[in-house]
């Protein structure tokens, strides 16, 4: 039998369609992996009984003609799943069981996938290292002292460790791409509005976007095809026809123009990352791509802008967690106000509180114009920078992160250095554009490094094609000895 840990989702799908492997066999394989990998703390909830039941139901079917036939998949615990606990990594939703299924996960099940469980993440997706989860930190399978990135750290770690053949995360400021980069996997943040936000616990509504996390670009195209859809329940969803990303995937990128933004050459960037970037450029050149130096002059304002807009929206989005209707309620307090204070004081972790405070502050009267309004204006300028560039180039190549995965605890006491980790990823969210991170090499310590491709709105196909071409040249090899088993 084939080693399921070393083949791609696309290959697994083929095996299922050829009846070489059943859904139940897949499920049993991943359950075994998950149970041997508890050390990594990837899962908040597993629902194996259901998974086995659903796999059996799938195997009894006559028609396997869907994108993800009987494929067991674990998802970030930010997606509401019907009758399966959904916590968003927070104590305040510790026992919350939705009565509804998010549109994105519904799409997965419609394509034949079955739910394996819910993956750990930073609390309300606020974090870059998966250290803010109420359910404990997640460990990077690359090395036992490393963070897996965040906020979709449970997802990246579970994927890299083959606890799931593919997964989905959410990306508000880099939460898919940065953990993908830290774990040697592929992560794609789609155009804002390509995937429905309905049923995803909201962090910052104007930035949140669900996306696939996979072992290679082909899988990524397949997963994106499965989860993206127009949804009239989400007013910001884009009404367009579904694309066949996987069918249309090709490496023919000759004659394309790729932009290299000078503003992404930041101070103190490790040499290894510079080299990685150059390697990417060389590969593209060899593939017949024209490299063009471009400028995104407002890049340096992206991070401060992001840390105004995202907390502002979050402070409002998280107001519903008040102990009144669902979720955790403190039993302390003599009146409504005290109940609120205690519930939110006890229910939220430090990072969430920090952002609620920042968000409340920047929206306050007297500060609104100076912070929130100005940030919105800058956001428009950042978008304009990209618009101008895409008149000249087909896509933009940058490193995914300014460093490789850092050590657990290394940045927890310094929020600013933690936030700086998002420097290459947040501009894309502010502009609503799609971007993909793909593994492109390792640093001297053997830690994976990622390259990021950014493309124009709804230009995912071209972006995937470029990534596909780079991937096939770069021949990234993940060296995992499954030390945790």
């Amino acid at each position: 039998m084939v080693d399921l840990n070393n083949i791609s989702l696309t290959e697994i799908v083929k095996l299922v369609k050829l009846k070489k492997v059943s859904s139940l066999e897949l499920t049993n394989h991943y359950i075994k992996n998950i149970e041997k990998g508890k050390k990594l703390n990837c899962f908040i909830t597993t629902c194996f009984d259901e998974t086995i039941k659903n796999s059996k139901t799938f195997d009894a079917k006559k028609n396997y003609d869907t994108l993800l036939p009987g494929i067991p998949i674990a998802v970030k615990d930010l997606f509401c799943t019907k009758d399966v606990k959904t916590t968003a990594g927070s104590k305040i939703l510790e026992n919350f069981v939705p009565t509804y299924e998010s549109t994105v996960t519904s799409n997965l099940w419609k394509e034949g996938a079955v739910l394996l469980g819910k993956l750990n993440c930073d609390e309300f997706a606020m974090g870059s290292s998966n250290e803010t989860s109420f359910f404990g930190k997640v460990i990077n399978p690359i090395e036992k002292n490393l963070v897996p990135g965040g906020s979709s750290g449970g997802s990246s770690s579970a994927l890299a460790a083959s606890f799931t053949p593919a997964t989905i995360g959410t990306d508000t400021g880099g939460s898919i791409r940065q953990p993908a980069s830290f774990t040697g996997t592929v992560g794609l943040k789609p155009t804002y509005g390509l995937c429905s936000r309905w049923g995803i616990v909201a962090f910052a509504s104007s930035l949140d976007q669900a996306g696939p996390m996979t072992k290679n670009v082909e899988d990524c195209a397949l997963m994106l095809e499965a989860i993206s859809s127009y949804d009239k329940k989400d007013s910001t969803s884009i009404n367009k026809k579904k694309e066949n990303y996987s069918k249309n995937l090709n490496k023919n990128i000759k004659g394309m123009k790729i932009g290299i933004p000078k503003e992404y050459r930041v101070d103190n960037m490790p040499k290894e990352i510079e080299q990685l970037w150059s390697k990417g450029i060389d590969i593209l050149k060899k593939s017949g791509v024209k490299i063009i130096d471009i400028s995104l002059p407002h890049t340096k304002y992206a991070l401060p802008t992001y840390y105004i807009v995202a907390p502002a929206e979050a402070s409002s989005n998280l107001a519903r967690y008040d102990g009144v209707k669902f979720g955790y309620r403190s039993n302390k307090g003599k009146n409504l106000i005290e109940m609120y204070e205690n519930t939110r004081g006890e229910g939220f972790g430090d990072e969430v509180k920090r952002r609620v405070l920042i968000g409340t502050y920047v929206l306050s009267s007297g500060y609104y114009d100076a912070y929130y309004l100005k940030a919105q204006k800058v956001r428009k300028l950042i978008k304009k920078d990209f618009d101008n560039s895409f008149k000249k180039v087909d896509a933009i190549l940058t490193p995914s992160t300014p460093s490789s995965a850092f050590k657990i605890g290394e940045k927890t006491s310094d929020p600013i250095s933690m936030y700086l980790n998002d420097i290459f990823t947040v501009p894309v969210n502010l502009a609503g554009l799609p971007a993909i991170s793909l593994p492109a090499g390792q640093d001297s310590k053997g830690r994976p490094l990622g390259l990021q491709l950014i493309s124009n709105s709804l230009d995912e196909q071209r972006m995937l094609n470029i990534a596909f071409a780079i991937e096939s040249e770069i021949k990234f090899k993940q060296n995992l000895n499954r030390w945790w088993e």
Partner: protein
Amino acid sequence: MSKEKFDYFIKTENNYWEVIIGLEVHAQVISNSKLFSGSSTKFGGKPNTQVSLVDSAFPGMLPVINKYCIEQAIKTGLGLNAKINLLSIFDRKNYFYADLPAGYQISQYKNPIVGEGSVTLDMPYGTKRVGIERLHLEQDAGKSIHDLNPDNTYIDLNRSGVALMEIVSKPDLRSPEEVNSYIKKLRTIMRYLGTCDGNMQEGSLRADVNVSVRKKGEKKFGTRCEIKNVNSIRFMEMAIESEAKRQVEILESGKKINQETRLFDTKKNETRSMRSKEEAHDYRYFPDPDLLPLQIEQSFVDNLKKNLPELPDQKKDRFIKDFKISPYEANVLVSDNNISQYFEDVIKNSDVKLAKNWIIVELFAVLNKKNIDIKNSPVSSKNLANLINLISSGEISGKIAKQVFELMVNTGDEPSKIIKEKGLKQQSDPKELEKIVKKVLDKNTDKVQQFKSGKEKLYGFFVGEIMKASSGKANPKLVNDILKKELKK
């Protein structure tokens, strides 16, 4: 009491104080479903039976605008002669309260759907134009119920998310009477349009009242206080009166008014402080990122405008012009769409002059006394038209008609049936009438003599006696003719 000239002032020993009033009316939009969800808006359902996951703000739930509510707001805007903004933005108004599930209310702050407009009031001292500042759409909150249990508050979210129109007037109102007239006019317009039922008991129409005072002749506005959530016209009038007096007393004693939000205590007939300006909420308004800016095509507005029903002011002008009735009467008839409809139904087949009098005088008296709506009138428009035609044709006298009308009210029967059953038909047979006339004159030969010798006043006496003898059924015209003839003999 009719006034020739406006004279509402708070009078003190030394001063006349003018009262400045502006209103923020919250009008519930007539729609089957809520502003951002599909739940029912029906009033009076069992608590928490009309609540969706969106209304209760479950994680990951998103609002989707109800197009019909947008139409309703635009129609109302057009009814207020207002500017329709083709681009408007929904904002979040953030505050914590147990009956506000999301922790914010979706409202429109800087960019409302409707801009400036106006409403015309008919006051005893002439017409008055009241400016409308804006109209915006927002969600209602749920309801906190404090009196079911001594230790707990219960929450009913049926109302949570229901669409409201907040209609903000300019500070153009100057008396409780004008406020009364303004609210009623607003209500009439919205009822004509079918955009708000105006039912104040059910809370479909409520208002925040802004009051300030200034000495007569002064140009600058005084500091205002806002009286929150007043839910009847009478309470609004009382609240304004008592608040204005309170402010005058403070100013006359040399102190200053604090800008604040106040509540009206209906039992004590006084307002009391709810929170001062310093304690005012910071609502942290910002555009709701879950909703895109609302963009409307001009053609969409034009289409609504084209299909707008006749509005009260237009109808009033038409009534005056077409039916030659007074502005006062026209006002009364157009004050309620059902009344004007009833009136127009009656006059389809009957005399306008009689119809308006019978409706305004006789029918209104009955409806008021019995406290019933004209829609449920015991006298149908068809039956009233029939009665009027019987009067016009001389089949019954006006006096008999009143008797018939009373029976129509009690039985709902049609007039000819009542007349037949009760034998109330007019006596119009000349021979029979001649007999009666002769009989009366024969009985009163002395008075006939006196009449003939010049005491002409006695004519009325003879008519009276003849009517009495015919039990009021004699045709007055014929009686006249015969009597004159007989007296000449």
